[in-house]
């Protein structure tokens, strides 16, 4: 049901990445900063995390989905709107209400979150490069859906706070769509997004049930 070919997708992604350069590098720096504020929490860390994540979803929704790919793929209209809804949720819960507690959670959840965060920022693009694509033919955090979803799941694994459960459904649904797309076109790093997000959610749920048990 994907209405475009791999050739057209990669060509369009290349044009998009060249157009927004060097925003990808800047976004990765903001991502690293978000990891830092989880590791070394400050008073404003929750708000900062909310702002970074909300911006990444808003920019991906507005520019990648609605701005570029909606012309080629009708699925990008609803997905773009979904990204904006998630951006609004992250902005409200994180930046406005300060309900994200940036103190790192302990144990497996935290360690896997950290690994997933670095994978989203650097590992996923590296897989694309290893597959023989150029730097502009791979997705990056805050400008492509796969890395943005994965990084958000990673942060949600590492933090705690009120109402964070409502921030999971959109990444899970979006991850499923990205994986279907990745499988259809043979983009390995995108194909892996849903299994990784589903695993992250399972770990989070297990971690919460353990905490409730204690």
């Amino acid at each position: 049901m994907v209405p475009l070919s791999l050739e057209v997708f990669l060509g369009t992604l290349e044009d998009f990445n060249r157009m927004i350069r060097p925003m990808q590098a800047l976004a990765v720096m903001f991502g690293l900063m978000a990891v830092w504020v989880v590791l070394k929490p400050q008073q404003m860390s929750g708000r900062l995390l909310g702002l970074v994540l909300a911006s990444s979803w808003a920019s991906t929704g507005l520019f990648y989905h609605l701005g570029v790919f909606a012309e080629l793929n009708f699925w990008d209209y609803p997905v773009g709107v979904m990204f904006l809804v998630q951006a609004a949720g992250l902005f409200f819960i994180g930046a406005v209400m300060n309900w994200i507690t940036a103190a790192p959670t302990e144990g497996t959840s935290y360690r896997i979150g950290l690994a997933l965060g670095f994978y989203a920022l650097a590992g996923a693009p590296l897989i694309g490069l290893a597959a023989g694509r150029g730097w502009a033919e791979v997705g990056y955090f805050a400008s492509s859906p796969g890395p943005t979803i994965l990084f958000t799941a990673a942060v949600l694994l590492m933090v705690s706070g009120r109402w964070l459960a409502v921030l999971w459904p959109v990444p899970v649904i979006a991850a499923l769509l990205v994986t279907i797309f990745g499988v259809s076109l043979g983009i390995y790093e995108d194909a892996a997004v849903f299994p990784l997000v589903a695993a992250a959610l399972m770990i989070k749920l297990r971690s919460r049930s353990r905490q409730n048990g204690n």
Partner: protein
Amino acid sequence: MDRRRFLNLAAATGATTAFGTLPSPSFAQSRELINRKIPSSGTAVPILGMGTWITFNVGKSTSLRNKRLEVLKAFFEGGGGMIDSSPMYGSSEEVVGYCLEQLPPQEKLFTATKVWTVSKWMGVKQMETSQSLWGHKTFDLMQIHNLVDWEVHMETLNAWKSEGRIKHTGITTSHGRRHGEFEKIARDHAFDFAQFTYNVEDREAEDRLLPMAAERGMGVIVNRPFQRGALIKKLAGKPLPPWASEIGVSSWPQFLLKFVISHPAVTCAIPATSNPAHMIENLEAGRGVLPDPQMRSRMVTYVQSL
């Protein structure tokens, strides 16, 4: 008698089964494609059209657009005329419009697109957008895509037809599970065309839809003659039957297309390609003899045996 004259004579008399090799491309292009008449209007259309799903959805890239222009050139030079698209296919309509603008006016052009949205207002807006994208004020065929809001659009299409803004109306589905609903709609309402999937592997349409279309005097456009490319992949590397040359077939795509277009109820099939060489190869299937019922059964049995 030289080869050209011999083949011309054979084609004219339907005796192309007498020899086992295909004519050269340059010669093939000089011959007309088989035409079929639209039952409701008597208008003749070439038996092979061109689909645009995925292949023409290339966005703004000028280099990709120009590659598609080569495909369209090969299509027209090979005697093609009918182009089918849809607003669902991303930028395909815009790219078709771009390509048509680069080419001289085509006498045989038969423009077919679809309406794929909900509500009368949105449908009208979408069809007006299609007119603008194609650069054509009148469409030869406007179809309701995948039965979406069909009752509403049917009224609009009939009104547009009576105003001369479209020449034919149609309804489409590409999902086998909706054939029952599709048949009921097509039986109860007057459409000039029905479009659905039919190929050597997916022959569900033979039971109800094709006989119904013939009985109701509807033209039939066949989509997915290669089952979205799956049949080509499946058959690649497998030997063509030794008797393929009897029906003028020298490749699997031609085999698959000959099977589809030889059904007497089919008006045309719309294979899609982004490769001009494949376009030329595909169009060869629309010339010469078509398999008779006995040969069609043989074709099915052979594919099933692989």
